[in-house]
């Protein structure tokens, strides 16, 4: 998993729960990387799962909720860090429909070793977009947070429905977005 996810995650923990919490989950998780992350490095995604699990434990908040919150915030970082991906795009549906065939393609050019989830699309109904998220890792909630962040960014009124396709494992989820009005 790319280092930017870890650094952004720790930024979020620091912002929401204070730097003590950051040190606490890093210390208690006994991570192979000792909690040393750079945005451009690559680290085992299990470390993130460990950190999230400890955060949940210490904050008494459910993991999916934490991950979704993180996704929401991560979108804001992407927007600030990669404005090129957003130029000329005015709607959430258009942007999201581009992720698999444009953004992921560009990501792989920069980081050939990146392990990315896949998105399948159905745009056959006008004003609606169906996205099916599939990953080897249980980050469907992260995707949900990212999608929510995206909708918020474009300021549109969109009804979003998420349906787990992986019996609670978080590795596959169907998102249905319907533009209102």
């Amino acid at each position, binding site marked *: 998993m790319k280092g930017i996810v870890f650094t952004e995650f720790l930024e979020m923990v620091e912002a929401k729960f204070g730097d*003590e919490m950051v*040190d606490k989950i*890093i210390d208690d998780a006994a991570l192979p990387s*000792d*909690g*040393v992350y*750079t945005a*451009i*490095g690559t680290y085992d995604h299990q470390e993130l799962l460990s950190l999230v699990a400890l955060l949940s434990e210490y904050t008494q908040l459910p993991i999916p909720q934490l991950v979704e919150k993180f996704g929401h915030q991560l979108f804001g970082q992407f927007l600030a860090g990669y404005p090129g991906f957003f130029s000329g795009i005015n709607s959430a549906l258009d942007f999201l429909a581009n992720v698999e065939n444009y953004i992921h393609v560009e990501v792989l050019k920069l980081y050939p070793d990146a392990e990315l989830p896949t998105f399948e699309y159905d745009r056959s109904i006008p004003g609606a977009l169906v996205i099916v998220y599939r990953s080897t890792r249980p980050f469907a909630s992260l995707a949900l947070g990212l999608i929510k962040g995206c909708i918020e960014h474009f300021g549109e009124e969109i009804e979003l429905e998420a349906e787990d396709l992986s019996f609670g494992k978080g590795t596959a989820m169907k998102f249905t977005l319907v533009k209102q009005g």
Partner: protein
Amino acid sequence: MEKLQQEIERLRRRLEREKAARKQAENLAEEKTRQLYKTNNELTLLSTDLEAAVSKAVGVITNAAEGVIITDENGIITTFNPAAEKIFATTAAQVEGLNISRLMTGEDARNHDRHIQKYLNTGEKRAVDQGVRELTARRGDGRLIPIELTISEMHVQDRRMFIGMVRDITEAKKAKEELRRAKEQAEVANQAKSNFLANMSHEIRTPMNAIIGFTEVVLQDRTLSTQTVQHIRTIHNAAKGLLGIINNILDVSKLESGKFILESVCFHLPNMMTDTLRTVRQQAAEKGLVIDFVCAANVPLRVQGDPTRLRQVVLNLVGNAIKFTEQGRITVLADMENRADMIHVSVSDSGIGMTPEQVAKIFEPFSQADASTIRRFGGTGLGTSICKQIVELMDGNIWVESKLGTGSTFHFTARLPAKQDSTDCLYEEAESIVEGYISPRLFKILLAEDVETNATLTMLRLNQQGHDVEWVKDGREALAAFQRGGYDAILMDVMMPNLDGCEATRKIRALEKETGKRIPILALTASITNEDHQNCYQADMDSVQAKPIDFDALLAAMEYIIPAGAGKPNTHHKIEIGNTADIDFSVLSPVADYPKALSTWRNASAYAKALLSFVREHSNDAQEIERLLTAYPEQPGPARTLAHTLKGTAGNLALQQIAGLAAEIDTALKISLPDKALPLSQNLNDSLNEAAAAIGKLRLPASLEAEKTKTFDAEAIGGLLEQLSSAMEELNPDAVEPILALLADYLSASDLAPISKSVEAFDFDEAQTRTLALAEKLDLTL
């Protein structure tokens, strides 16, 4: 304090983590930098290769001898090489960015756009990858030039492009045009040559015919010395050889100028082959050679084709075989090819043969075995080449197998479809087509013959030759005519009323004793017995011809017995075949051998007319014979005369059964056996009725039909003759003519001709006499 201590400891660990992270980031950055450096090096190398490749490609395009024009898929020019600049007299800068169609003429441009558009839409290739096309290009200076264009397609970074290779073919076209013109000129010249040859050959043939004809005439002169005859024979042979060569040249020029056209008629193939070979049999026999003809059983008898040209091929091959063979046999074989309608003929000889080199050239025009062959054997070397072209016109082939010193076998094939129907088939009776005899001299002949049909036939055939014939009807008239004089010879029927042929001859010879002259007299007799012929010679006739008359023999005999100096030269050289009216005689087949009769008469109308008058005049002959024999059993003479006349007349008309029965009655009565003759007359009557019925079925042209409808009407004729007789007493030809015209409906021209001749000469006494004689002949009392 402890809390502060803990906080410092926490911050210290955090600082360490940040340091470690920075170190990690620096390592990663350094590694990325190294990678970038390496990648940059690789890119530099790649770009050098690419540059080299590009400049090579550009170099090829720039230096190409052909014009190279590259366009995008809309036809916009993106590349225009120097060769193209030269061809189109324009610069790349002037045309790049413009549509390629501006380099073409209007129609080409429209087609081009349409083809490209169609290709882009449907993939149907009309211009792209379709090889070389010829177009007209518009140059920068406005000149239009012919070009060759090849269009191919390439894809560069997902973009379609078209590459046009252009070649200026102005010079090539000019050269081609010059070549075509030169070829045309050569063909015209060759055609002119062929026409000239054809005309010249024709011009030469005309005097050649005179040379040959007159040497033949001269050769008839029995007063010539042996030496002179020898010289003239040499001239004759040389002229004939020369004519053969000219005919060959004429054929070659006809073949070359495409004027050689085959005719398509039905002919009897084996008969035609036999007849052809008969003409060279003598020539072969003179060299001691034998010609065998073998015709395979599967060869159809009657075929459709050109017998004259087939004969020419066979004669040429057999002629060569005779020429090149010193001893042995020549075998001609006809059989069928495996293919339908293909006849195969081979001519094998045991002659000198040919080398493979000679074989290879034998069918080429103007080629002979070698120069020495020409010296030894002569000839133009055109014969086999003509044969080749003729058989090829007949869809066939010609080839030769030969071994030097052993002999040659020439083969040819020809498409000759079998015909079932035998009507109108040539060579149906081999005799019928033998080239007729041509009289070298023309004579004034007196013909004494009592039977009209016989006289008509004789006059017809003699007139065809150009002889002038005067006809009288018995010995008495013949004697009178002889005394008037002016004849070169007399053709004398033997059995005639009033004065028979032998008696008339004796009287003529007696008269001649005073003048010392001697007119040749030729007997015509229906009798074939030696005794009768001897009687003629004893009466001092010069020759005897049996009836039915073989006219070739008669003409030859006339030429033989009439001394030199008589008659005038025959300049016609051709027998007038006269009227060949399209009459279907097949209804006669049960009663008459009409093909034979037609070959004798050579005139369908005349034959038909003769048949009609036969019915008119002889239908009652059998009854009359019976009546005479019953009434005068002791005097068979008159009955025999009737039978004898009938025999001759029926024979000329090829009414075989009637002629046969009449001959039997004639013979029976000659040896006085009327009992035997009587039952025969019954059969004869049946045959006459049968013949009359068959002849009545003939469908005739209107002119002859009239003759048929007006049957003999004694009352009407008697009345007209009476009118005629009284008109003559008025000595008025104008009154006589209409009556003669009316009589012509009932009576034959030969009956009326003597009368109208006398009227024309204002000899009304003679005309009156003849009128009365006619009435008497017709058994009418005026």
